Structure formats: C-alpha cells, structure tokens
C-alpha cells in the first residue's frame, strides 16, 4: 500500500506481493511451525534470488542498491502475508547498514560480494537489542593482531542459519562498545537449539555463548554506539514498515471475514459494534502507512531532524499495530484464535516486531533524552 504514496516504489511492491502470493500464501501456518516443523529453506533461497536479502546494499557489494523506501515497501508487502521472511530481510539489512555506517566495505564485500547462496548471504545479529542499553554484552580483548570475544549473546537472530555474525561487545567494564565480525563455525562458539519465541517463528534466533572467539573489528574501536545510532532512524522505520504490513494483513482478513460471517441474521460487518472495531483498524493501518511513507521520503531526501521523528514514528506504529492485531483476532471470534486463520499469528508477530531494536521503554527514554538534550 506504500506505493499509493509514491509510484516509484510500485515495482518493488508488485515484486514482493507476487513473491508473497507464490511462496507464502496458504503456507504461513506450516512455515510458522518451526522449530517444531521444517524450516522454509526454499523460501529463503527464492528471497535471495530476487534480491530481498540485500535491498539497501550497493550493487558493487552484491546488493540491489535500493533506498529505505524500497526496503520498507518490500517489508510491508512481505509482512502483510507473513512477517517471518520480513524479519530475515530486516536483520540482514541491519547488518549491512552497520557495516556501511562503519565504512567497512571490505568486510561487506567479503561476506555479500562473494556469496553464492542464501546461506552465505545471511549474517546474524541480536536484532532485539540496542547494544548501548545492554549491560551484559560480551567482552572483547586484543589477541595478537586481532581480537577475541567472550560472553553470552541472547537471541542472536539468524544465528542458527548464517555463517557469520556481527556482535556488539565491550572492553572490560567500559561502557563504550564496538562491533565485531565473527565466524559462527569457530570452535569457541556454542549455540543453543532455536529459541522458541512468541512470534516470527520462521525468523529464528539462538542463544550463543562465546569463548575466546576470534573476531574482526568493524570500523573503529569504541564507536559501536555511534554507528548504531547512525543506522537506527532507517531501521526504526523499516521495523515500523513490518508492522504496517502486519496491520494491513489483519485488516484484509478481518474485512473479508466480517463480510462473510453471519450473526444475528446479518453479516457481522452490518453490526455497528463490529464496524467500529474495523474502523479502528482501518484508521491505524492508514496512519501507519503515512508515518512510514513520510519518514522514508524524509530520509531519502536527507532532510535534517528526522532521527528522533523516525524513532517516534516507529514507537507509535508498533503501539497501534499491537492494538489493531488484537482487534483483528476479536473480529474473527473463536476462529481468530485458531491457527487455521492468520490473525493469531499476527497477534504474536506484531509484539515480536515491536521488540526489534531494543525494549520499548528504553527506546522511549532514549527518544526524550535526544529530543530534550537532558
């Protein structure tokens, strides 16, 4: 729906929608059974083939060279059908943005430029955290010409699938963090089974314990927070686009059901109490699209002052998404609670997406610190 605001995004939306129709529609429940069912490697391979795993990565580094608008358009269209592939695209984009922010094009080229499969193109990241808000980051030490990392990383997204990961770490007790590239096949890496989480089951995460794992510094030492802050505005909007897509999907299904389901002698959409629920969802879905679009346009044009607005827009979109998906279940009554329909998954996924890039209260406090300067 974002393309209705800007026609340049239309081809990417069409591509993502046709991908969703072909690869995701009718299979979301099956895909969501992971880790108790099979992982959808075929979908991942196809997402790689069409370029979804490197949308914002420059062409010379193996990416599609798109802007934030393209990324958000694709994420919203994918998440309208199933948010798990959206989570994978998001995490890979986050890693790529961090590498570019740190001007580590050499490392990006090594990972993405040389990859020849989806597995090789993936990179893992603890996407549900803001490293600066985490007290228990792994510790790094100089080791010969390089570095070594020791400590736990919880919920390392794609950690069970990717060969490499970007890990935030600190030196001893200092607060300044740095980013490192590690090889997940290193003998000092021990991984848990996929962690069973609330939503986005097919965008899995593992808990990882690092024991003197060889690591390459990304950019400069102690500048991790600066790099992360640089990528945050765009990635906040990307996460918001995911929830905008989820909301759109919830509204689609609620409207379709309300037109068909009879209660009290008429279609439930003809009862005003249900109409009010639907209206609330429609308002929220449109508001979310507008927030995302405006933020994308401002970011693409390099307008000043959008850093905190993007964070604010994302917080707002996530909040209304979590309300809208709750009502989405409610419109379908008992059916909304069952896995035969898509609403229960959206109810779970919206909360999971909201948690991307750190806890909500921490992000709110961060926002007001930045806005006020206090």
């Amino acid at each position, binding site marked *: 729906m974002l393309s209705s605001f800007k026609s340049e995004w239309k081809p990417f939306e069409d591509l993502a929608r046709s991908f969703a129709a072909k690869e995701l529609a009718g299979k979301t429940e099956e895909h969501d059974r992971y880790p108790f069912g099979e992982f959808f490697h075929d979908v991942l391979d196809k997402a790689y083939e069409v370029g979804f795993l490197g949308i914002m990565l420059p062409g010379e580094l193996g990416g599609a060279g798109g802007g934030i608008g393209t990324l958000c358009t694709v994420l919203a269209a994918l998440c309208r059908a199933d948010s798990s592939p959206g989570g994978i695209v998001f995490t890979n984009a986050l890693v790529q943005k961090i590498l570019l922010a740190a001007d580590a094009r050499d490392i990006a080229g090594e990972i993405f430029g040389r990859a020849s499969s989806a597995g090789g193109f993936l990179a893992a990241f603890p996407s549900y955290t803001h490293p600066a808000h985490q007290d228990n980051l792994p510790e790094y030490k100089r080791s010969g010409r390089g570095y070594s990392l020791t400590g736990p990383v919880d919920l390392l997204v794609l950690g069970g699938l990717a060969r490499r990961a970007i890990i935030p770490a600190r030196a001893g007790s200092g607060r300044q963090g740095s980013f490192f590239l590690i090889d997940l096949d290193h003998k000092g890496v021990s991984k848990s089974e996929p962690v069973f989480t609330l939503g986005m089951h097919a965008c899995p995460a593992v808990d990882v314990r690092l024991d003197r794992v060889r690591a390459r510094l990304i950019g400069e030492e102690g500048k991790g927070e600066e790099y992360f802050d640089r990528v945050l505005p765009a990635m906040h909007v990307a996460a918001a686009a995911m929830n905008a897509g989820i909301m759109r999907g919830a509204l689609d299904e609620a409207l379709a059901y309300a037109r068909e389901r009879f209660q009290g002698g008429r279609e439930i959409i003809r009862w005003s109490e249900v109409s009010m629920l639907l209206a609330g969802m429609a308002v929220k879905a449109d508001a979310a699209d507008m927030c995302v679009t405006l933020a994308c346009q401002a970011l693409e044009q390099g307008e000043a002052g959008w850093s905190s607005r993007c964070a604010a827009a994302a917080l707002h979109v996530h909040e209304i998404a979590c309300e809208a998906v709750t009502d989405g279940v*409610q419109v379908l009554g008992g059916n909304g609670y069952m896995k035969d329909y898509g609403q229960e998954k959206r109810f779970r996924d919206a909360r999971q997406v909201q*948690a991307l890039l750190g806890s909500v209260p921490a992000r709110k406090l961060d926002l007001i610190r930045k806005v006020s300067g206090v």
Partner: protein
Amino acid sequence: MLSSAEVSNRLSGFPRFEDMSLSLPYAPRMPKGMVRETREVVAIARTFNDEVARPRALELDRKTHEDPGYMPRDLVELANRWGFYTMWIPRIFGGRGYNMPSMSYFAEEVGSVCLGIMNVIGVHYLGVAGVVASANTRLAKRILGEVVRGEKTGNPCLIALATTEPGAGTDVEEVELVDKGRVACHARRVRGGYVVNGTKVFISMGHVSTWTVLYAYEDLKRPSETTVGLMVKTGTQGFSFGSHENKMGQRVCPASVLVFEDCFIPDDQVLFSTDMVRKFTKKPIREVAQRYIDYVVGATRPGVCAFGVGAARGAFETALKHASTTTMNGTLLINHEWVQSMLAEMYKNVALGRLAYTEANYANSHRGLYKILQLKPVYYYLRLMPQAYFDKVIGPMLEKDYSTRLMGKLSYDWARPEDQRCCSGWASLAKVAGTDLGVRNCQMAIELMGQTGLRQDAGVEKMLRDIKLLQIYEGTNQLNRLNVFKCLIAPEIPQARVFEEDR
C-alpha cells in the same frame, strides 16, 4: 435529615443504590466459615502450583507444539487425585461442597501460573453449572454422583458443555439472537427420547470428558422456543469427536469438535426441555431458556474474570521477578521510577479485577444461582451434617419429581427479573474487566521485559497467548458489553432496544 421514604426515593434513581455496591449489603451476611474455607482453598492452590503447575506449565506448552495431538489425560488424573473435580460440587450431591466464590480465588491462583492447566480443572464446572442450573435434580444427582465415584475410583469423570456451533457463536448465548442465527444442531423428538444431528465446535475438554451437556433445538426455525438440554455420554453411538483445534494458547486444554449423527439420547438423559419446564412454570419458554443461560454464564463469567486476574497477576509477578534481577545502565530495573510505576499499574489492575469478580460473586451468592447455599443456616447445615445423611436421606429425595419441581419453582418461577439482570450484568461486567486487564498486564510485562519477554522459557509470552482466549470465550467481550448495557443500563431507558439495531 431525610425521611425513610425520601431516602428510598433518592436511592431508587439510576444507578439504584442496590446496584452500586453488592459487597456493602451482602458482606455482613456472609457466613464466617467461608473466609476460613477460602483461605484453605488458596493454600491448596498454592501447593498445587508449587508441586504440579509451575514445574510443568512451560514444558507442557512446548509439548503441545511438538505434538499437536496431545491430550492432557495425565493432568486430568492428577487433578482428580487432588479432588478438584468434586471440590465445588455441593455435598447434597456427594461433592466436597466448598463455597462457590472460593473457586474464583482458586482460579486466580492457578491461573497466575497457567491458564491452560486452570481450564483443565475449571471448565468442568461450566458443565456442572449447566447440570445444576437446569433444576433437574434427578439427573444432577446421577451425573454428579458419577463424578464423585470417578474421584474415588481414580477414573476421572468430567463434564463438558457444548453450545457453540460452526455457524453460530454469539447467537447461541442470547435468546434474543438465536432465532436469527444459523444454528444447525437438531434434536428430533422420537419415542423414548431424542435423535440429535449436528456439530459443535470449540468445546473445551470435549475429548477427555465423560459427559457432555449438549444444547440442541427441536425446531431450527424457532430455537429460542425449542431449546433442549441433553446429557450425552462419550462413547454413545452416533456421537464422535472431530479434530481438536490448533489454538494459539491454552494448548494443554483441548478445544474439541463434537459430531452428532443420528445420536439417540433416551428420555432419562434429557436435562431441559419444554415438557419438563412446563411441570414447574407457566412462564414463556423463551424467558425460561434465557434465565437458564443467564444462570450458567452468570455463575461462570465471574470465574473467567478470575482467570483473567490470574493471568494479570502471573504477568505482574513475572515482570517483578525480572525487574528485581535485571539491570539497565548498571541499575536494577526495579529501582527505575518508570518500572515502579508500571509495576504499580499492573498491581492495581490485579486488585481491580479481583474486586470485579468479588462483586459478581456477591450477586450470585445472594441473588443468583447458588443463593440458597449461601444462606447462613443452609451453609452450616451443609457443612456440618455427616455425608451419610446426604447420601441416605437427601439423596433419594433428589430423585423424586417433587424435588425437580421445587428447584424449578425456586430457580425459575419465583426468581425476580431484577435479580437475573443484576447477576448477569455483573457477571459480564466482571468478565470484560478481568480479561481486558489481564491482556493489558501481559502486554505491559512483555514491554517491560524487552527481548526476554519474547522467550517461551520466560513464561510471559505464553500468558499473553493464553489470555487472549478469555476475551473471546464465554461470550466475546463485545457481546458481554452489550449484555452489561442490556442488564444494567437499558432497563432505566424505556426507548433502549438491544440486539435490534437498524441495518
């Protein structure tokens, strides 16, 4: 000062004083023994939580994802051994006879650990309420007697209740709506009983229950006037189970599909029918059917509120533990002011929810389904007389027609409409309040806990999945809000019409 006539006049205006606070007039009338009993019930629930529910809740939830066909037979056997399936069955029927409001406190306790496990215990009492509210003492004695024997012999005998149909959920909860609904479960009168055809869905614990209270209709065009309540035993020819639903939460408690194909139910298993009702009242059958529904949901919806309060408390306790052991910027979360404020808000939600079910229980205790049991002399009589007295003296009386007629007169003919509205309205009010507050607390806990909150092994994400069902079952909160309007507000507004909105 005002004269007593003036006071009465003032207090009869909207909201009527008697509807404003139920605890104020009724708390002093409560038998003191109920407090002692409730303390014991809470202690039992906490023991069960420590020994059974807490060690198993997450593991069982995970198991149901690994094996979607999982049935909680082991849990049912355990709950049976703990005596939970007879705990709130009155002693005249052979049960342990704990006071009904104490079940809400129990539900809050066990629900604070696992709503699924609580439903495995609690939904049986929806069936019990369906049996008892019918006024059919003969059949109640027989069925509840089997539950009691099932406990003694170690073969659990549970009762499920089947109302919802594939095409009708909200409609079957309201007599006003059912004639416009798409009900399809048909009971044909034949010599010696009924033959039933139809399907029921979302029937909690259907697969593992021995008896099902089944509602069907003699005339599908006039269901409100032809409602039939039937007791169907699992294994009866023509009664089978379809799949059980693949739910988001409360997965340990199956929601079953029940299929009836030319299923014959003999007369002695008819719980409620027009012919039976005519033996004790001349009131329109629609009115009696609505009263019957209201008795059942009026008693069970406060329980759902307690389930919601349980989840609200579970979320609060989980968040509190997390905040007490996790740091942010080097300071324990619990020492951040925003965290203290959030935790206080959650604690407040728990307390308000508890007040809601307490008020609704006062309505039922003094103006509803079990008001006779709560009269002080009756309460102590039932507590103190030896069980042999009930078995040998009262038991045979329950099987006589006069007993059913008396219960019918008491419950239907002599009951006041304003009491029905009070109980039903407060039950809906509590249900909406407790479940909405529960959802809110689970959401707040997940937000507070950040990425930890997303993990199944941290507990709170399961609470969010589990509690969502409470806003839907026992009437969606949308229907329940309309019922609050219908029962507590509309009677004051002559021009108000409910369930008749213009298109």
